[in-house]
């Protein structure tokens, strides 16, 4: 972490105060359906942020459009509920403008892997220190149940009455293939496990990705709900998976859609320098001498 004080007025970024989950909960009441997985996600996030210990005003939380993209408003952080698919480039602009901020990005599977899918590889290869949380429910919920990029083949939705005839995107393999340094998966019904990977993702120095299979109670497959998920879940730590093993991570990730592995698939044991680091370095190197004096 940096000790520079940017002109934002941020104090040096060091966790000195103690926060509880409550400090990150806003007064806004979620619009989600009762039983939606996203309630769990936001609760896990409050807890993770409390352990991280950064004050809410030093956090910028960016989302796109969709049910899950409402999440920034339910926190006390600076929130930006933007447009469909553009959360990642907007978040990168925020981080570049002020690298001292903790920047979180969230959205659904449609936001991240359909309309905004083109931004994901570039966010990964650029490697700004951001955390991207996808609430993957395999359906478009806000628009009432259309095919999403992660809807399984054969699924009947309001835009596939006879069953989907295309392969879903595999979010885990997608980000691993582009070289993402931290890749994890979680389910909200495993609150402790989910909170832990969110926290780990935020602590990872670079672009980190967490796919949370967050069930849609209204339009989702009855076989894709909290109880079923919890029964199906296999913890990667229980399997003795070594998160430093990228090839093994890709092998495990291939089973997305059939097996439900949770935990850290991959954590780069030697994280490369971040883009924000290079920005500071360049600004420092090129700063006019007289201004520094």
């Amino acid at each position, binding site marked *: 972490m940096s000790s520079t004080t*940017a002109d*934002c*007025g*941020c104090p040096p970024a060091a966790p000195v105060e103690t926060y509880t989950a409550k400090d990150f909960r806003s007064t*806004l009441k979620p619009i989600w359906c009762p039983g939606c997985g996203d309630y769990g996600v936001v609760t896990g996030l409050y807890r993770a942020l409390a352990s991280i210990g950064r*004050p*809410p*005003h*030093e*956090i*910028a939380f*960016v989302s796109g*459009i969709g049910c899950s993209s*409402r999440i*920034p*408003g339910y926190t*006390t*952080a*600076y*929130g*930006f*509920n*933007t*447009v469909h698919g*553009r959360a*990642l*480039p*907007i*978040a*990168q*602009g*925020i*981080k*570049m*403008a*002020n690298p*001292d*901020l903790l920047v979180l990005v969230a959205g659904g599977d449609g936001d991240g892997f359909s309309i905004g899918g*083109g*931004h994901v*590889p*570039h966010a990964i290869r650029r490697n700004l220190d951001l955390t991207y949380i996808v609430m993957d429910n395999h359906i478009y919920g806000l628009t009432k149940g259309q095919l999403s990029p992660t809807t399984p083949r054969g699924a009947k939705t309001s835009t596939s009455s006879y069953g989907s005839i295309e392969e879903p995107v595999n979010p885990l393999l997608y980000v691993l293939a582009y070289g993402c340094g931290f890749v994890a998966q979680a389910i909200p019904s495993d609150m402790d496990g989910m909170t832990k990977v969110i926290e780990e993702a935020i602590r990872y120095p670079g672009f980190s990705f967490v796919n949370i299979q967050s069930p849609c109670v209204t339009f989702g497959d009855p076989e894709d709900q909290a109880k079923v998920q919890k029964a199906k879940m296999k913890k990667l730590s229980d399997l003795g998976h070594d998160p430093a093993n990228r090839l093994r991570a890709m092998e495990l990730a291939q089973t997305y859609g059939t097996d439900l592995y949770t935990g850290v698939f991959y954590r780069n044991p030697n994280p490369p320098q971040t883009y924000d680091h290079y*920005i500071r370095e*360049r*600004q420092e*190197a*090129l*700063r*006019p001498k007289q201004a520094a004096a």
Partner: protein
Amino acid sequence: MNDLIIGMAGSGGDGIVSAGESLISALAREGYYAILTKSFGSQIRGGESSCRLRVATAPVLNPGGTLSVAVVLNWEDFLKFGGELPVGPDTVVIYEKKTGVAPADIPLKIKPSVVMAVPMSEMAMKAAKTLQAKNNVVIGLLAGWFGFGRQAILEGIRRKFGKKGEDVLAGNEQAFAAGFEYAEQNPIGTDKRMSPPAGSGGKRIVTDGNEVCAQAALFAGCKFFGGYPITPATEIMQHLQKDIWKHGGSLLQAEDEIAGIAAAVGATYAGKKSMTATSGPGFSLKAEVLGLASVSELPLVVVNVQRGGPSTGIPTKPEQADLFAAAFSAHGDTVRPILAPISVEDMYGVTVEAFNISEEFQTPVVVLSDQEIAQRKDIIDPVDTSKFKLVDRLAPTAQELEPYVRFRFTESGISPISHPGMKGGSYLAAGIEHNESGAPTSSGEMHARMNEKRLHKMDALKNRRDLFVIEGDADAPLGLIAWGSIAGVALEAVRAARAQGLKVKVLIPKLVYPVVEEVYQDFFASVQHGLVVEQSHQGQLHRIIRMWTNVPRKFTALARSGANPITPADVLAQITQISQTLAASPALVPTA
């Protein structure tokens, strides 16, 4: 002479454009003013290329019309430029003797009085043993016949070739000398020599609109640029990527046009002045995020360097046909100010103004530049930056942070804005409609109030009469309106018409949108006949003005598709014709 227009054409290897660049640098040092425009075929390398260089003792308003001098390295290439290099009876035509065409048979409709066939290639080979020195032969001929720049040109040659070895330098110096001597030995009879400049060049610079835009953005405090390469806007990013870091800023060459503006929106949300630049196709892609900046009330500068459209259109030629897109491409009820520079030099003030307006009114501002202003080279005096005041967005006071209400209804419609990092200032920004505190809402009543807030806050812009240039006879029955790079053409035509005793005036809006009704109504008070002069087939400014104001019945448009130059002579001819009509119907002329 105090105004000379040189047009040159050849194939890629002839170094014609490089000759134009060498000349304009020399002319700047000598104390002249000039505009250099370049034009190429569609090939990436090679093919035909041309340039026009207008030199004058006073600041030049536009690239001009009919050539005073045509330099033809080969006829086929020259003729491809058609209307861009028009030859008249008074044009001095200098051409390569090797083309084998007899002076009486040159392939031009007009027979110019002075035609010189010069063995340029032969002279280059003799002087420098390479055809590459041909452009210095051409420069020598021009310097000899038209009497400018000898010393400054020789300095330029030494600077350019000094590093390439003594032989190369000597060869090019000799090529120049050969051209110069040829001109002295073969006088062209007519006295076309340029008058000496009023003073020395001093610190005058040769620059273009894209470079000026980048410099002005940094001066205005721009700390972030997000963009994607697109002709003819790319150089803005190229200049900024060298310097923005020195100002503590950063730059992102994004994966696409949308990500470019999205990152810029992120940066402005984070509290930094930010900018993106593009041309028509990219502007279309950015439209949705522009709407986001409007509804979340974030300052942002978006430069659109217009080119021929729609779609890929003609990327290397100017057009003024993105005005509708700039004004109307965002969905919903939004108004975003549009500014347009009228010259390379003016790009500085307009860019600074765009940042100031965006910050003051917390809105995206579109700067509509065009390919000509962006890429032509002008000799300009150093910009006096002391005349500019810089504006920063309104920050909340300590009291306003307890509690902070981001979109608070205020008398002006402008609410104090915080940014991540500011303690007590946390709020939810959103593309979704919201209430004063930023919470999402679908209430019709709140939507109407927020629309009113966002539109009303621009009202103060309408007092900015300094963003309009008005010149000519205040009570003239004949009025012109022009904008962007065409403004300089209209201005020159109006000055020429008034010099002939005609009564005419011109209005040049730099604030093109929103339409400031009062300015037009005042202007139209005396006007019976008139024209909007613009380079768009539909006459987009003419139509937009008519949407908001009552224009005089006989107020029409001289509207021409892009890539078809409008010259001062074209406009003067229209002014003369309309003046005759007005004189023939005296009942319409005010008596007082």
